[in-house]
């Protein structure tokens, strides 16, 4: 029995060798590498030779004057994106669902999904130009008598700007799941509602919205896991030293400390700090989503 099992099944294990090797090398080895957060790591002395320093780097990080700002920025930008983005996607999906002309609907979808597939370098390249004080967006709002706004260069405007840009890039893509949920609503319910004389608005409010409410709750719960993900690549493309006070987030801080200043241990410690909170939140979100919604991970 045992030998026939091996004879039959060894190819399955052989297939797994390459993927398992790469996951160990590039996922598990770095996971072990976080021990340098507790060491005084220097490349010269290497991984093993550096001495243990306990929680020194965590204390250093927490006592840095910028740390509070950075934590606050991360939280504000991430939560802003989640809330604003989800609401906009839901409204967009509700509006699009009322469009009866198939060609029009398809065209709107095709165009609004597209920005999702562009990198932040491309989008940043387009918008840094458009958002200049004499750029096209300021020219446009100037028509309404509004003075030019330095969107990406002022601490007052940086956070709203990145939140709106993220929403602009992702709302179409984010609406797909709501639209899919709407197609699953039984048409008979709409027919019954029409028979009962429910107006269009009542149908949206009393049929469509309840029909997608479980998806809304599920995505809202799952987004708890993201409240420290403010969007590393976006910020890295759009920010600049003039707006560090409002634009610097944990990920960009880790990047600058670690790779530009070569503070390996300090930035690993901050990264670990973020990972632990993120993991706790993700597990919590998954637990809540599995318990209270239809969500299943595997």
């Amino acid at each position, binding site marked *: 029995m045992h030998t026939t099992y091996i004879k039959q099944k060894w190819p399955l294990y052989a*297939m797994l060798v390459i993927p398992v090797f790469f996951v160990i090398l590039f*996922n*598990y080895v770095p996971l072990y590498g976080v021990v*340098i957060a507790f060491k005084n790591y220097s490349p010269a002395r290497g991984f093993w030779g550096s001495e243990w320093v306990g929680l020194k780097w965590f204390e250093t990080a927490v006592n840095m004057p910028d740390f509070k700002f950075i934590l606050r920025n991360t939280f504000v930008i991430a939560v802003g994106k989640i809330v604003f983005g989800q609401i906009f996607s839901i409204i967009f999906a509700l509006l699009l669902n009322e469009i009866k002309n198939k060609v029009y609907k398809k065209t709107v979808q095709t165009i609004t999904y597209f920005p999702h597939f562009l990198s932040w370098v491309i989008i940043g390249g387009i918008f840094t130009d458009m958002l200049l004080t004499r750029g096209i967006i300021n020219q446009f709002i100037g028509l309404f008598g509004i003075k030019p706004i330095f969107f990406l260069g002022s601490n007052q405007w940086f956070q709203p700007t990145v939140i709106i840009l993220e929403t602009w890039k992702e709302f179409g893509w984010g609406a797909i799941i709501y639209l899919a949920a709407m197609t699953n609503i039984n048409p008979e319910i709409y027919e019954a509602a029409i028979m009962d004389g429910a107006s269009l608005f009542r149908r949206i409010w009393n049929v469509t919205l309840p029909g997608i409410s479980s998806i809304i709750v599920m995505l809202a719960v799952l987004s708890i896991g993201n409240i420290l993900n403010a969007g590393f690549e976006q910020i890295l493309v759009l920010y600049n030293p003039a707006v560090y006070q409002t634009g610097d987030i944990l990920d960009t801080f880790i990047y600058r400390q670690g790779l530009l200043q070569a503070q390996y241990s300090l930035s690993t410690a901050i990264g670990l700090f973020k990972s632990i909170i993120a993991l706790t939140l993700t597990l919590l979100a998954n637990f809540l989503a599995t318990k209270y919604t239809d969500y299943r991970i595997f």
Partner: protein
Amino acid sequence: MNITYTKGERIFNFFNYFLLAIITLTCILPMIHVIALSLSDTVSATSNSVRFWPKGFNFAAYETMFSNSAFIKALGVSVFRTIVGCSVNMLVTILAAYPLSKENRELKGRKFLSFFFIIPMMVSGGLIPLFILVKNLHMLDSIWSLILPGCVPIFNVVMMMNFFRGINKSIFESASIDGANEFVILLKIVIPLSMASIATLSLFQLVGHWNDWFGATIYINDRNKWPLQTLLHNMLTTIDFSNFSAADVNRLKQLSDRSFRGAMIVFATIPILFVYPFMQKYFISGVTIGSVKE
């Protein structure tokens, strides 16, 4: 079904079409603006007078771009890492997804293996430990640093696994009675039956590799080995906002290559535009499978 619209509903419908038209326009106008910019002459581009139609129409920016050796090199790197990277991703994805698509009794230790693959989705060592690893492997400044560290796209493995599970089991049974081993079954039956899914995931991988710029900013110092998007990022960040208002001279110098940058942005978007219609066919199923499973 016959629906008679009330007056209020008709007004709503009209505004709905109108509002969605505006929303859609906001998604496309930035792209049109940058195309117009790339086709305009330097004077118009610099004086902020270009809107949605080129002024002083010319192809100079594109000519400059194609005669720029940094651009040509970067294009080569991008094409190479996109094709090779995507191939490696797909090979590894299939090799992992097929065994994992088996039932627990068919593959002993499957439960352990699933956890082995899920854990890295939940936690990662972060930027620095991975950077140190890549450095210690002497992969810095090598194109493999852009391909190997992320070569197991675990999320895609899960999607692929679900696709494989959808295949009718009776086909496997008749094949294994005929004495075919798992390699043969994978190659001769499973892969041909899953070509649509494989194509879909490949397109997403292609776009991912084409779009990636951050990898090279940390792993590759030699700018001759940068992919296109990293080169573009470098050009964008040379605008220093902190001394922007003060130094007008500096600004003019930077803005004069606006058309050139526009041309690069347009060029970098074209491949995505090209694969986009093919991807769109699979969006909804892909997104749904990834997020909600019954």
